């Protein structure tokens, strides 16, 4: 069993130093990896990124992150990435990483993702250049996520996790105004996950949403925006083939490959 800790939307600013560190210092006892689902800063400045980096530097578990829209606000996303990487964070931007966690090879594919909406209510790559560029960015993020998941599938990973900032499904947006769903995520992300397979999808961005959702193909989706989970991070236990089955609780379910 692999223990996945995850949180997004921590929105740290210059005054936030030390806010999350006491909680993160407990990770060694309850998790094998920490996933950060974007919006780590408020304005995306290097100064804010250094605060984030200090919160996670030297933790006893590997830290894997994607950036969110706030982390792009100052057009310094490369500097934000550099600060995080200097602290040992694996920052993913349309790529994957395979980690050996507790003797199990776990693949994590990450992209910020983008918006555009969900099936039946989404924008199209049509019309003005601005509209085409908007949807094209969403599509390219999803394509990169799909490629990364596919490569991890070929890398003999026992488990694969899709990490995004924007939401892949509308389920986890429940609580947000429906009118803004198209700005909160894209079905293209879920389609890429369902085509390539994943054991868990983790995202943030939707502060008023709900934690639990599922893609049409049956992949569990968790919205880990800190306002949603209402704690420093959530922990998910993912079984590995060969694990003893959990005690039956009356529910059944399958895990897509």
């Amino acid at each position, binding site marked *: 069993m692999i*223990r996945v800790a995850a949180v997004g*939307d*921590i*929105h*740290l*600013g210059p*005054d*936030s130093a030390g*806010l*999350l560190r*006491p*909680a993160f210092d*407990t990770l060694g006892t*309850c998790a094998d990896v920490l996933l950060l689902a974007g919006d780590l800063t*408020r*304005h995306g400045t290097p100064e804010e990124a250094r605060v984030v980096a200090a919160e996670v530097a030297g933790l006893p578990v590997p830290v894997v992150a994607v950036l969110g829209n*706030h982390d792009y*606000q100052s057009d310094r996303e490369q500097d934000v990435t550099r600060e995080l990487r200097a602290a040992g964070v694996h920052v993913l931007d349309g790529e994957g990483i395979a980690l050996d966690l507790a003797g199990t090879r776990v693949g994590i594919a990450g992209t910020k993702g983008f918006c555009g909406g969900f099936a039946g209510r989404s924008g199209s790559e049509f019309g003005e250049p601005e509209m085409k560029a908007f949807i094209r960015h969403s599509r390219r993020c999803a394509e990169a996520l799909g490629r990364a998941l596919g490569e991890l599938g070929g890398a003999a990973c026992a488990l694969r996790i899709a990490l995004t900032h924007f939401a892949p499904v509308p389920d986890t947006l429940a609580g947000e*105004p429906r009118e803004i769903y198209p700005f909160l995520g894209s079905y293209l992300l879920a389609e890429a996950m369902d085509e390539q397979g994943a*054991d*868990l999808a983790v995202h943030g961005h939707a*502060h*008023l949403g709900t934690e639990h959702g599922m893609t049409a193909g049956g992949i*569990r989706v968790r919205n880990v925006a*800190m*306002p949603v*989970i209402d*704690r*420093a*991070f*959530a*922990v*998910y*236990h*993912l*079984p590995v083939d060969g694990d003893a*089955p*959990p005690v039956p609780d009356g*529910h059944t*379910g399958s*895990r897509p490959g």
Partner: protein
Amino acid sequence: MTSVEITEYRIEHLRDRLAREETAVLGVRVETHGARVVVRGWVPDEQCRSAVLRLAGEELAGLDWYDDLTVSHPAPPDRAEELS
């Protein structure tokens, strides 16, 4: 009635400032509730809450408004979810 006096435009001006200024919050909702305006949602710390209230006071001056903001107190989790 001028656009300056129309409540829904003033709400949008506040939301725009909440996003662009030091608060950088997009997740705080500002909407009419009966005859009043409510500012509600989650903010990461007390400094951010104070800044949101200051901006709301400036943009909603003269209107009947109140806040229902939640400040983060991030604690370690007391449970894990088993995904079978």
